[in-house]
């Protein structure tokens, strides 16, 4: 199967739109993350969605992973002028989005003598239950908001399940372009772990083992066939494919000391780093537990465009 072209990149990370520049780190001490052994984390200071929202008030419907996803997807799609009906949308998401305590008041109100009391659910709980909560906590809400605000109407999917979610979405997109199921595809991975509740869950899930400093990110790539990119004279930043060939395995954790552990967005972040640092040839893979690894090849050669003016050929360390 031939590689596909990456013609759009969008990142919303704790280090901004170009996290691969230099050797900065966004990890910082955080007093608010209860129980984190080393109390450092990396979070996005502000998420500007104004360029992408059709209706500003819709932002209040969006949990943070959806905001990160839309903030990354918008720039990645900026140069696309083709059909939105034939534009695919493939999204990898992480933990349950949104409900960082929003339902706590309702649950506590429903609580009587160590159990949930249905009479209380119908009374005080119902009164304080956030009516929009079900619409924020569904795992496909990032996909929904991107689709709505960026008018993406083609084949789609939302995968969840940890580290491999983003890579699964990316591979599905590559195949779909190859098979002609869509003209181009927007692939997005998004995840956030920088809240006290998320850190608490991480610690509990680790069973006492040390955890890495948590992070958050939205990462988006626009991919299309090389022929399509050539026909519309699009800037091609890299080629990606599903065949490993002889490419060395890129360490998808290399960026964690800079933007933190982003779980479902980690591997897509590694792909973006490969592109940003103009990796000549790399294989990025993610593995969830004992499941088979899911990966893609990434190649950038001298004929490819830089997706940002700060990328330089001398910044290829490790690739």
């Amino acid at each position, binding site marked *: 199967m031939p590689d596909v072209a990456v013609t759009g990149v969008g990142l919303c990370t704790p280090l901004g739109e170009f996290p691969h520049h230099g050797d900065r780190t966004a990890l910082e001490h955080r007093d608010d993350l209860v129980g984190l052994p080393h109390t450092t984390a990396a979070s996005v200071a502000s998420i500007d969605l104004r360029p992408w929202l059709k209706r500003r008030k819709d932002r209040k419907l969006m949990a943070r992973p959806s905001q990160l996803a839309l903030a990354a997807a918008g720039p990645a799609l900026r140069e696309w002028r083709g059909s939105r009906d034939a534009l695919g949308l493939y999204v990898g998401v992480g933990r349950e989005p949104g409900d960082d305590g929003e339902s706590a008041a309702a649950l506590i109100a429903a609580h009587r003598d160590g159990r949930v009391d249905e009479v209380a659910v119908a009374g005080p709980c119902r009164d304080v239950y956030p009516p929009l909560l079900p619409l924020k906590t569904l795992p*496909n809400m990032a996909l929904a908001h991107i689709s709505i605000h960026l008018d993406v109407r*083609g084949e789609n999917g939302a995968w969840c399940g940890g580290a491999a979610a983003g890579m699964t979405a990316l591979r599905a997109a590559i195949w779909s372009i190859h098979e002609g199921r869509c003209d181009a595809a927007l692939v997005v991975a998004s995840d956030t772990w920088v809240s006290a509740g998320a850190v608490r869950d991480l610690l509990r899930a680790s069973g006492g083992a040390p955890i890495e400093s948590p992070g958050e990110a939205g990462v988006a790539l626009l991919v299309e066939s090389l022929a399509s990119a050539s026909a519309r004279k699009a800037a091609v930043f890299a080629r990606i494919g599903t065949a490993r060939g002889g490419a060395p395995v890129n360490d998808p954790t290399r960026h964690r000391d800079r933007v933190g552990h982003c779980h479902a967005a980690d591997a897509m972040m590694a792909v973006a780093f490969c592109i940003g640092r103009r990796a000549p040839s790399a294989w990025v893979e993610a593995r969830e537990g004992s499941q088979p690894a899911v990966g893609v090849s990434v190649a950038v050669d001298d004929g490819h465009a830089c997706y940002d003016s700060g990328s330089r050929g001398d910044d290829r360390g490790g690739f």
Partner: protein
Amino acid sequence: MTRRVVVTGVGMVTPLGADAEETWSNVCAGRSGVGPVTRFDASDLPVTFAAEVVDVAPHPADGGDLKLRLAATALEEALAQSGPVSGPGTGVCLGSEIGRPALDVLANAMRDNRAPSRADLERMDPAAPTRLVASMAGATGPQSTVSTACTSSSQAVGEGVLKIRRGDADAMIVGGVDVLVDAIMITGFAKLGALSERNDDPQRASRPFDSDRDGFVLGEGAGILILEDRDRALARGATILAEISGYGCSCNAYRITDSPPDGRGAHQSMQAALDDAGLEPEAIGYINAHGTSTPMNDPSEARGIHRTFASPVPVSSTKSSMGHLVAACGAVEAILCVLAIRDQRLPPTINLARPDASCDLDHVANAARDASVTHAMTNAFGFGGSNGSLVVSKHA
């Protein structure tokens, strides 16, 4: 040459039966699986009824979790029919939403400001049923979990088809599971105005395409299909139940909870599935509609059907009988299409007393209909605007 993908086993647990045959028999008989909530006292809730799944025996692998129990039970039925499929050539793709620990556990944890246990966290992971099914079957091929609300398991079946066609796997265990009937979910969906509030007549509450519909009925269940490369299934002498010949999907790009009135997203999904199957619209002999019984969905879907099919096609929504199984509905309704083709019999939409003029379709109303069906289509449309359509074909 593209590999053909066939179904060699099905299993399901629904409000109408503990297995596929019992469910199918009850659906065709026009029975309802909807009734007052029995799992807890719902008498003070805004909606006091649901389509609770039938009792199934605890499974050794379920850890006391109903969602995992349903997935395990449906899997065992499907594998008993297909024969064992396992190893690195077999993958798993299920549709699932977030799991929920027992509400009591969650409320206690929140009151005491402490985390849910590790086991609770693992159960809350949408991928938990996928992991269990892979482990039970010994499937070590590609695994993934699709979570697109009510479209989840339709897309999971579609992804399974694509994985086999692409050579990523020779067999795929696909389907979906959902368990949403609890006090908080009923309260939440009722607050959104999505549920029928026909508390005085639960069995007639789910009435897709009827003028008096007022919302969907929350249901729960699981459906599992064993998909295989056709050549491999024939080589091992498996009984082929049907072929999944087409899969298509689309996004509405409209609103989170509403479907576009012109039915464009539904049409795009159905047309993509037809194109994928290489079929003209007139080849389809039955449509198992998404048909939720909400005021908005049904006319939008009907419009999408009209845009796709120039000639009338028999249509029914089996959600009238078993409620809305959310992440499981796509797989369960695909299995019903398999059985409709096997028996050449179309299941009905019950409670269809006064068809809505905006849903002017060839309804299979209130009683099953014998018919010659070679190809059937099933639709699933989700909160958030993801649409999925599958074409199920008689194996030839």
